[in-house]
């Protein structure tokens, strides 16, 4: 059984936002203006030490969102992907509180400033509907996992900074890179 993980190789991330628009492109049926399931965060912007990292839901093994959700809308697939059921979600935002990565997003256009249903990265694995159904496409976007494909953001990454897939494969790739770079500065920044 695979355990799906993302890893962003910060030595390679150039903040080109390819992952962000790749996600928009693939999941546009479920997204709206203002919702970005993936973002690129840059630290030390414009000064020595500038580094960027692409961030979305990290599909935690012990997911805080899942632990705190009062409506119990989260569930984990057999591949270790954390998904949620938008029909059950009450839009309280507690998951947003709990998440260390700021992954949960809320639509901004609803009346009275209501949050609406939470939206987040699905690892391109659709959601709590039948695979490739209209309902799934509309609520959650693409389901590439069901087609044997990996998330679009990582697939289209310009410099192969963003890796996605089974944790053991991802870490093999990364280990090899770190080893071949061969310096104590091989990792961050």
């Amino acid at each position, binding site marked *: 059984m695979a355990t799906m993980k993302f890893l962003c190789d910060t030595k390679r991330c150039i903040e080109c*936002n390819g992952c962000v628009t790749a996600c928009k492109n693939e999941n546009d*049926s479920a*997204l709206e203006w203002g919702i970005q399931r993936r973002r690129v965060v840059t630290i030390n912007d414009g000064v020595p030490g500038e580094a960027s990292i692409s961030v979305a839901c990290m599909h935690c093994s012990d997911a805080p969102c899942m632990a705190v959700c009062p409506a119990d809308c989260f569930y984990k697939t057999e591949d270790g992907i954390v998904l949620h059921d938008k029909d059950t979600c009450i839009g309280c935002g507690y998951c947003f509180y709990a998440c260390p990565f700021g992954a949960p997003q809320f639509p901004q256009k609803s009346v009275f400033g209501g949050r609406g249903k939470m939206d987040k990265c699905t690892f391109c694995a659709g959601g709590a509907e039948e695979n490739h159904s209209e309902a799934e496409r509309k609520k959650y976007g693409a389901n590439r996992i069901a087609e044997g494909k990996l998330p679009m953001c990582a697939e289209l990454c310009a410099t*192969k900074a963003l890796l996605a897939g089974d944790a053991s494969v991802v870490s093999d790739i990364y280990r090899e890179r770190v080893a071949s770079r061969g310096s104590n500065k091989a990792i961050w920044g």
Partner: protein
Amino acid sequence: MKLTRKSTTTPQAGKTELGINRRQFMKQMSVATGGIAAASMLGTGMIRKAEAKDIPHSSPTEVKRTICSHCAVGCGIYAEVQNGVWTGQEPAFDHPFNQGGHCAKGASLRYHTHSHKRVKYPMKLESGKWKRVSWDDAINEIGDKMLDIKQTSGPDSVYFMGSAKFSNEGAYLYRKLAAMWGTNNVDHSARICHSTTVAGVANTWGYGAQTNSFNDIRNAKNIFIIGANPAEAHPVAMQHILTAKERGATITVADPRYSRTMAHADVHLPLRPGTDIPLVYGLMWHIFENGWEDKDFIRTRAWGMDKIREEAKRWTPEEVENVTGVSREAVYAAAKHMAHHRPGTVIWCMGGTQHHVGNGNTRIYSILQLVLGNMGIQGGGTNIFRGHDNVQGATDMGLLFDNLPGYYGVTTGAWEHWARVWDLPFDQVQGRFDASPYLGRDPMTTPGIPCSRWHDGVLEDKEKLAQKDNVRLAFFWGQSVNTETRQMEVRDALDKLETIVVVDPYPTMAAVMHRRKDNVYILPAATQFECEGSLNNSGRSAQWRQQVVEPVFESKNDLEIMYRLAAKVGIADTLTKHIKVEGNTPSPDDIMREYAKGMRSIGYTGWSPERIKAHTMNWGDFSAETLEAPGGVNKGETYGLPWPCWGTPEQKHPGTQILYRTDRNVNQGGGNFRARFGVEFEGESILADNSASVGAEIQDGYPQFDDVMLKQLGWWDELTAEEKVLAENRTWATDLGGGIVRVALAHNMIPYGNAKARCRVWTFPDEIPLHREPLYTPRRDLIAKYPTHDDMQVHRLPTLYKTLQDKVISDNLDKKYPLVVSSGRLVEYEGGGEESRSNPWLAELQQEMFIEMNPADATDRGIRDGDNVRVEGAEGGYIFIKAMVTNRVKPGQTWMPYHFAGVMHGEELVYPESGGDSTKPYVVGESANTVLTYGYDPVTQMQETKVSLCQVEKA
């Protein structure tokens, strides 16, 4: 950048247009089929599109191969098409350039075939209102106006602005269309992109193109990036740059800003804008002083280096520090590093080219590589990244004011060559032109009006123009005019033109920023994904785009629009004499065969549509390390057959990935510097000395091949009888039989001869690159020592230099406008930005036009990050934008992105409505070019966008 990403506001465009997604898109389309009133505005033209309906996941999927339409890296894409709609974009992991990777723009391409911001049908502005017109009426009215103008003012009063977004076939046909019409007033955005590269580099060693390839950068040990920011402008190139870095290469970035690329580099040389030449001489000072130059290489393959040595001597570490602002320690360290880490490559872009000394910049970078002996080797070369997807191809096709396809120039000899290719009598071609000279210049053999200054062709006093009359009608075919400096004059010129014809998928600024009531036409052109054809990436590799979907709405293929216009004005028969026309669309395959036959000078003759398609259909056969196919149907060939690809397609030349590479046989992609400038100068030989490519029968310099040389060598009888007839009185570049080239190759020799690269270009205003302070310089103390040129007439237009620089002192412009301003790119947008700002997936990421300024300058002015500011340029142009306060720029310097438009002097411009939707992009903003000022390279008329002066105040 950070500034705008925080924004949570919804954009100005109406809610219903936002987040339009695939499902909504299909829904609206199917409504149109039903003819429901609200949607029926879309009209019959949309019905075809409507057949797409809703597409279930299980619909059969067809996969097409296409190439990204943004920068010139040339990233491949698998486009999934269902029911005629582009529904999915899959990574092309097997593509040798990008291996599936894309930047923000590439990852969002699919949207362009869905965008409701596009112009849906031909439109005309009449009495202040946009009106839908039929294609036939539009073509007829425009054609009648053209003919009327030709009658009264001659052919030169029609201006043909073209595009680097054309396919090769589109670019070639457009250039030929202008030729058949009888004018050299044809140009495209390469003028304001890499024109100074093409001129500077070609005049140094023969060809004005990237010498190596993106993939070859992996072999470099040292990467010197000057005036380029690939992390934003060519992100996928970073894949190769970072691979080199991981293999031990070091990266040095010379850039006034701490750019996103700099964030991955080892050494920063933060030079003052406009001081590239002193900086590179400063590097050379150390190299010569320490004897680090490649003496063998210079002796055998470079000419005129003594003058460079002399000039470099003047650039002592103290003077370099004074002029460039880079510390002497940093310059020394960089020079030492370059000297001890070879091969090294140099990468440059607009930061080097867009200067009034641009031709000098590109030459000094090239000369640095000669000094270091880094040319003609793997991991070396000048990797010049072109900007638009087919700017290399459009440049090759002579879509330029001073060239015919293949860089033949516009001399009588060039016209005779092309008349033979076209199978037209020279007299007939000549007869199309205005025969009278103006200001002593003959219109047919005088370069036209450049893309950078078409507006001067409209506004300048016609007595000062070297043509009969002002420009009266202009086509803006795939070009956003907000990319040109002096936007106020651009606007005045748009107002003064009698007729404006925009041909584009989007209205672009020529249709929006004028203050007119009448005579503006917009003809909807299809995007690259709705047509097929070839394009060349920056590394001279050709690729073939399959047609992904049919043209959407009523838009049409460029080739069809050109043909219909030609038919209307009575030149279609000569335009397509040997090109098959189906319906109204000329065959791209036939067009390629025609230009490949004529473009001998850059070795296009080995290309054929069949060969290029065979490469595109077999991406996976080519190695990303070498770009060569180890097996398969293209065995031994280099991906995309980078030119020169010698001989006939049947001879199967593999293409030349690395130019001037002597360690290979010419028949395997080897070469040497081109003998383009004769054999001697002032009694000194400029041919190569004891150096030649592997296997060449003459292992020394030799001139270019022609009939006389073949006879002298005793090889004339190796030609067949037919070849002899065609070769008589011809050179390798004009012999349509190809015999001269065949014989040269049989002797393993390069048809274009074997010369040294020249450091001195005796035909240019500055024989060697010389520092000249920018027109609008912040350093008045340096003007006396490093003055600009005197004013001069360049081709058809008077061009100012000294007059303006003198004004800096006389009018105290440096006091009134104390901040230096440069412009540049953001990763999310491209060019004028109308297309990319109309893509919500991109627009969402950059919602505001801004100016970067240092905290010191901001604090002095009471400006905080995110404040609204008023920026005024040294010629009085002003804009209202946001301040981004950042250390990315040094004190005294500012920087703006140039992709914005749609607002001028704080006033929002009105976009036409088309098919019930506003064509206004999701994001609009003030154009940086409203602030930017005069300044043109004397050789190419490149505009100066990297150094001007401005003042910023709180708004």
